[in-house]
């Protein structure tokens, strides 16, 4: 489901959120003003792509790939911390 990532020593760009401007996609959205998409209960979850690790592979993950499945999206402060 997720695409294999080609990695190098350069730090990965990081995550991208649908409709939110970053330095790398500013040129594509020149005419659009930067909007902050805020989530709302009962509304569609903002789509995003993010690099990640799973079972020995680095992959690129896209939330919308998981349509037709239930998703539990968990955020947490940091690896190697305590709780």
């Amino acid at each position, binding site marked *: 489901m997720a695409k294999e990532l080609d990695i190098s020593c350069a730090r990965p760009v990081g995550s991208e959120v649908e409709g939110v401007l970053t330095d790398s996609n500013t040129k594509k959205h020149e005419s659009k003003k930067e909007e902050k998409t805020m989530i709302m209960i009962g509304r569609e979850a903002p789509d995003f792509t993010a690099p990640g690790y799973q079972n020995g592979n680095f992959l690129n993950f896209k939330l919308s790939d998981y349509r037709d499945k239930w998703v*539990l999206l968990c955020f947490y402060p*940091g690896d190697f911390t305590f709780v």
Partner: protein
Amino acid sequence: MSVDSMFVHKMWDETELSKMVPGGIPFPMLSDAAGRVGSTYGVYDPEAGVETRGRFIIDPDGIIQGYEVLTPPVGRNVAESLRQIRAFQLVRKTKGKEATPSGWQPGKPTLKPGIDLVGKVWEVWNTDMAFKD
């Protein structure tokens, strides 16, 4: 998902998590450097530079059905997250004909919202049912 890179996720899984979970973590560990996704979901703390402890239940249509956010020192109750998912799955399966009352657990009675139940919930449900197993 945390702000840690996928490289750190790999090492954390290999050196610590796989000692707690046989075979390591089976699901994707995502990297949100700069907290872009966390900001959109309202859980990124820009002062601390980390995500707070938010979790979101997203249904098969991509709709957010529930979320809970805690400050870092207190861990989640995963049993509660699973209970909620099962409840949302039941509601979805019955196309909203059934709803789950407070303290519902799989197997316990559900409610059938409708005009006949107005003012009569007390006949089919009591507060003890929320707490006993």
